[in-house]
């Protein structure tokens, strides 16, 4: 035993690290040394604690005091006041509506959450195998290996109702059963950590925060199916996740939890890490398998499913990080316990990455069936500022958006699919009324066009066509019939594409057309973007009554399109304006308005241009 009476848990998830957590950690070491108190405090780096928006965050035990937005300058005060004198620093605690939340468990962000896959994230040191074991780690593996037959393991997973957390929601036990039933000399288990959705960071956080849990889950899966080799496929953009899982593997080997005859049984297991180069399509299981084989990361048609003919032609199971993260707990607490959470068809919990115009961005885990309202307004703390909620994009570029009318929808696989969205891997992007939905759809389409591997033509050519139409609509050249064209293209691409990327890529466009058709129509017919996001469909105008003729706008215009004088006031020559917004920013009397719609001068100019082009073509 040591003299240490304080555990200082500093969140070292990627979010907090980029907010300066490592500098703070260094500072703590320095200050504690100055006060010769190094032997009283344990400084522990943990994985993501969740509330990334408050970062850098930390928790001080035994009291469980939660500090947010700590800077290196605050360290001195925390050490002298809290650690030495025992007076927690109120200033750094979460304060909302005149209430101060001192303990982590009281913070509203954590209230509606139930943590299964994230149980240890932000609580233990991810680089310490002992701390994982202290929380019950590897007990499930031992129990499974010693007491259960592989088929019993699969039956238990079946009873729990666990479904793949990577997005599709395919029942985990069916995949396992298929591989279990195949007779072969070698089988493989793969952990899919190729998380590529913009705005998603669930898998990264779990790998960084609790790597042993994923390893244990993978080993249980391997035992159930008769596999003895596993691969972690993690994208190169996640260096910390890769480092932590590698550390976990070598620690487990050292202790004999991996290798030959684990727990003195016949079960042998080894695992390696493979790094992905960041192609979005490699999250698709057949593309991922080809990438591990050293081939180009292209998908191949299914069937044959990987369970039949996967890695190097052998039966293979590919499971998502979070799916593995649930498995040890299912065996420790029982399938019944797991199935008691969530909804009937989607039991358990789901991890979401909350981002966008929301107050508490971060990593959360809630039971399936939690309504979007609870997720966004209770856990997420609602919208930033006085803005109104407009839409939420679930499932990233493969998902779809939902609107105010869906706020009371429970989040599970089926209910989201019914409404044109999907669970996806769990990225939740919340948008306020200042976002243009056509532009959002265009953004995701551009992403998919770039990430399309090009193997099948519906995806390669079709998505590019959709992007062309969307470009046309957002820059003011939209035509009647464009919406129908997008729908026709989208529906065919969904049906004809080879893999999940193409099949789901039209979703953002189709769902925004479904719920925000009027915005598309306004873009096409009125040449107007109500949110003033699309540059070509808005304009700046100077109000002569308010203008004081100071000429600041004219002097700051990079294209010299503002002219006038003190007497005549100033005017913007709309045709030349590039909408940079400089004038709007510098006007001292706020005489410049940002208005929706294309300016009549520009409309006239464009029609003259097209007339000229037509005449030229007639010649």
């Amino acid at each position, binding site marked *: *035993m*040591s*003299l*240490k*009476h*304080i*555990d200082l*848990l500093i969140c070292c998830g990627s979010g907090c690290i980029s907010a300066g957590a490592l500098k703070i950690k260094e500072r703590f070491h320095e200050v504690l040394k100055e006060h010769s108190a190094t032997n009283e405090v*344990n400084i522990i780096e943990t994985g993501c604690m969740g509330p990334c928006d408050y970062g850098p965050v930390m928790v001080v*035990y*035994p*009291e*469980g005091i939660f500090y947010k937005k700590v800077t290196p300058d605050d360290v001195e005060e925390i050490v002298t006041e809290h650690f*030495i*004198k*025992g*007076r927690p620093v109120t200033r750094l605690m979460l304060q909302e509506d005149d209430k101060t939340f001192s303990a982590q468990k009281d913070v509203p962000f954590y209230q509606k959450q139930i943590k299964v896959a994230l149980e240890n994230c932000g*609580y*233990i040191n991810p680089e310490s195998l*002992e*701390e994982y*074991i*202290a*929380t*019950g780690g*590897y*007990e499930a593996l*031992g*129990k499974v290996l*010693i007491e259960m037959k592989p088929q019993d393991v699969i039956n238990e997973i079946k009873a729990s109702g666990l479904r793949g957390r990577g997005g599709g929601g395919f029942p985990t036990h069916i995949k396992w059963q298929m591989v279990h039933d195949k007779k072969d000399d070698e089988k493989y288990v793969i952990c899919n950590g190729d998380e590529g959705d913009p705005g998603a960071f669930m898998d990264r956080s779990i790998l960084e925060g609790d790597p042993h849990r994923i390893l244990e889950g993978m080993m249980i899966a391997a035992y159930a199916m008769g596999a003895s080799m596993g691969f972690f496929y993690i994208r190169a953009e996640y260096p910390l996740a890769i480092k932590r899982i590698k550390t976990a593997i070598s620690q487990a080997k050292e*202790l*004999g*939890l991996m290798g030959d005859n684990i*727990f*003195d049984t016949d079960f042998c297991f080894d695992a390696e890490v493979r790094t992905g180069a960041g192609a979005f399509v490699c999250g698709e299981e057949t593309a991922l398998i080809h990438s591990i084989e050293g081939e180009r990361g292209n998908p191949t048609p299914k069937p044959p499913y990987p369970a039949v003919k996967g890695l190097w032609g052998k039966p293979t199971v590919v499971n998502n990080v979070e799916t593995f993260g649930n498995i040890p707990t299912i065996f420790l607490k029982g399938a019944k316990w797991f199935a008691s959470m969530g909804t009937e068809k989607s039991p358990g919990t789901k991890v979401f990455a909350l981002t966008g115009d929301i107050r508490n961005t971060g990593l959360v885990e809630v039971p399936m069936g939690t309504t979007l309202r609870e997720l966004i307004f209770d856990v997420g703390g609602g919208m930033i500022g006085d803005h109104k909620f407009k839409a939420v994009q679930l499932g990233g570029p493969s998902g779809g958006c939902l609107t105010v009318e869906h706020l009371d929808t429970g989040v599970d696989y089926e209910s989201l699919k019914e409404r044109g969205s999907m669970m996806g891997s769990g990225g939740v992007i919340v948008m306020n009324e200042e976002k243009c939905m056509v532009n959002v759809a265009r953004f995701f389409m551009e992403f998919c066009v770039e990430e399309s591997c090009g193997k099948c033509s519906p995806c390669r050519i079709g998505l590019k066509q959709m992007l062309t139409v969307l470009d046309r609509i957002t820059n003011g050249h939209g035509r009647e019939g464009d919406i129908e064209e997008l729908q026709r293209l989208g529906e065919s691409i969904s049906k004809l594409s080879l893999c999940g990327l193409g099949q789901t890529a039209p979703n953002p466009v189709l769902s925004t057309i479904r719920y925000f058709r009027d915005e598309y129509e306004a873009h096409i017919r009125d040449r107007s973007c109500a949110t003033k996001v699309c540059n070509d469909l808005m304009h700046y105008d100077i109000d002569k009554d308010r203008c004081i003729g100071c000429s600041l706008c004219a002097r700051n215009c990079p294209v010299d399109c503002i002219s006038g004088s003190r007497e005549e006031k100033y005017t913007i020559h709309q045709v030349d304006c590039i909408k940079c917004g400089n004038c709007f920013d510098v006007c001292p009397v706020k005489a410049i308005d940002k208005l929706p719609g294309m300016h009549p001068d520009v409309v006239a100019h464009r029609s003259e241009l097209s007339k000229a082009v037509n005449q030229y073509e007639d010649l």
Partner: protein
Amino acid sequence: MKTLADLKKIREKAQEDLKLRGGNVRIKIVVGMGTSGIAMGAREVMKTFLEEIAARNLSDVLVTQTGEKGLSSMEPVVDLIEEGKPKVTYGNMNPDKVKKVVVEHIVNGRVVSDYVVATGD
């Protein structure tokens, strides 16, 4: 590591290190560390508690601290909080008294009434 019993051994040892983060705590010792407490030697008192507990390997005892308790004339003040029993507050503590409290109260379960300044909440 070959059996569940081996794993359990490692777990029990590791849980010791996680003790501060909750778990099985039988007795909580709260040392008042306000300005007057520190001036009267509260840090020494806490250090002695930590050393004594470490020496005796008392894994279910937790030492923590708090601010000014108001009993300035009796500093250093220490609370012993035991599940299901009224809180016992000791006053005018020093390292020798700490040693006695650890032996009598914490190990043998007998309150050292000579040092008690208050009981209950």
